[in-house]
């Protein structure tokens, strides 16, 4: 359970492994090979590594050109800049031109803590989700990060990935499960209510489930690792079978996982629903856990809300 390996290191390790048999895998960095943990890759495969300096628009354009020429570029850059500074390049050069570029946003969400709103990335899902043809993925823990990276090397097309900065506690016991892009994973079965979570909040949702079980509530937990394309089937099934839905995310309450789920629910199977995330304000400074607690992205608060919803 206690894990000391950050997801960015898992991505580097996995790409190092896969590059043994594939000289087309490339990693690009924007003065971030250290923070992206990509320095070992740069060392092992200098010909498959490109440093562009502090230039996030340039990095996406160059990656699109590489992809057009048969390469499989992985752009690694802080999520805040990659998802905002480069968004036009992502829209036109990656999505619209259908190039095979993987955009890996590192230190996303509020994991940059006290560096403030310029460094928090809590609008990225909303923006990326609105771009046709761009897949959006947030792995929950190190096991999922590994399986996701393997899947991304196989997948042909534009993908925006967001991971955090620090190691996260495991949500999976092992890699012994099926990861399919676009298919939610049922982490816990349940009949009374469903919590849909993504990324680092999956762990929070699992803790809430355990507390709810103590209180006699049967809670389903869905890990919606791919926000786009969204697993509508799993959402509708949850609405049908459990009747209540709570979504949890490290993102603005506008336009993220909650909004995506609500769009499906409201149009096809309305049930009571609550959206937990960062409110419409610059997130408060602090460690991830402090920020989460401040906004009620915590097992205790989810449990409280679930019990309230069920007692109505």
């Amino acid at each position: 359970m206690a894990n000391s390996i950050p997801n960015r290191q898992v991505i580097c390790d996995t790409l190092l492994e896969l590059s043994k048999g594939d000289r087309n895998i490339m990693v690009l960095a924007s003065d971030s090979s250290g923070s992206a943990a990509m320095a070992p890759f740069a060392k092992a495969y200098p010909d498959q590594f490109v440093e562009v300096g502090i230039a996030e628009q340039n990095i996406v354009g160059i990656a699109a050109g590489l992809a057009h020429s048969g390469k499989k570029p992985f752009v690694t850059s802080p999520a805040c800049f990659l998802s905002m500074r480069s968004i036009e390049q992502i829209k036109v050069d990656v999505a619209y031109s259908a190039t095979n570029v993987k955009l890996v946003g590192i230190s996303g969400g509020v994991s940059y803590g006290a560096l403030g709103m310029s460094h928090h990335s809590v609008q990225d899902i909303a923006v990326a989700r609105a771009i046709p043809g761009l897949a959006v993925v947030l792995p929950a823990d190190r096991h999922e990060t590994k399986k996701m990276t393997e899947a991304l090397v196989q997948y042909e097309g534009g993908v925006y990935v967001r991971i955090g900065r620090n190691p996260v506690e495991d949500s999976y016991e092992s890699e012994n499960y099926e990861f399919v892009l676009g298919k939610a994973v049922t982490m816990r079965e349940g009949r009374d209510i469903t919590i849909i979570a993504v990324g680092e909040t999956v762990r929070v949702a699992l803790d809430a489930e355990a507390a709810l079980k103590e209180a006699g509530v049967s809670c389903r937990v869905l890990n919606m690792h791919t926000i786009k394309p969204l697993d509508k089937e799993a959402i509708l099934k949850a609405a049908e079978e459990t009747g209540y839905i709570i979504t949890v995310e490290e993102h603005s309450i506008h336009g993220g996982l909650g909004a995506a789920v609500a769009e499906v629910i409201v149009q096809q199977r309305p049930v009571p629903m609550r959206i937990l995330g960062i409110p419409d304000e610059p997130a408060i400074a602090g460690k991830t856990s402090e920020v989460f607690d401040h906004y009620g992205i915590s097992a205790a608060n989810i449990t409280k809300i679930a019990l309230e919803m069920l007692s109505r």
Partner: protein
Amino acid sequence: MDIIELKAKAAEIRMALLKMIHNAKTGHTGGSLSNTDILTALYYRVMKIDPTRPKWEDRDRFIASKGHSVESLWCILANLGFFPEEELKTFSQYGTRLIGHPNNKVPGIEMNTGALGHGLAISVGMALAGKRDGKGYRVYCLMGDGEQAEGSVWEAAMAGAHYKLENLVAIIDRNRLQISGSTEEVMGLEPLEEKWAAFGWNVVSIDGNDMDALVRTFESVPTVSGKPTLFMANTVKGKGVSFAENVAHWHHHVPNDEQLELALAELSAALERYKQEGQVQ
């Protein structure tokens, strides 16, 4: 303040920022130390500012485009009385106003920065407004050298020259290091001065850690009529702390107890020297 007093002040600011970073266990040490002399010259001598009236209309404006080096700025603003010095203890803590980048909820900060490559365009806008309104204020914009890789810097450079903003002063903290190592290895910049000159700026090269030179050149603005000025301030990243000087790793490394003690000892020795020099004069 005279030159000796400014040198002493810079040493005090360096000590304060190191203590603040050590206390918070986070911060951008190297880049803050490299630009402390530039900020000290500006804030204690060159700029027209009034801590009791942070929004005074005719004040000179400072934009920290390399917003990550906010530590020197927080310590200077507190020392000048823009906010209580006591507040420095909250730097980077839960709920603080003094986050790791400029935050204009705090008196003395004009604009929020942190994403590199924004400051010069903002400064062009401020200088243009000042020029159109016939105001006498100047706009000073401090950038990093690694930051020069952002295309937006050059879009703003073009505009600054196009609008003949002689009230605009851009400063590059040319410490030759960024996060991943040397600027020339990460993304070559040279010949950087020629590039700025080709974009229509009057370029002045100085030693950015030499207080005398800084004051002299800042006080010579506008250097050429009808042109914005670019100071290429050649500096040392980590300046003033022997073991941090020119070491890329110190970009955002935090001193441990021992390193803090050593650094403070070096800086107080320097401070003593300046005080004695001051008495002799």
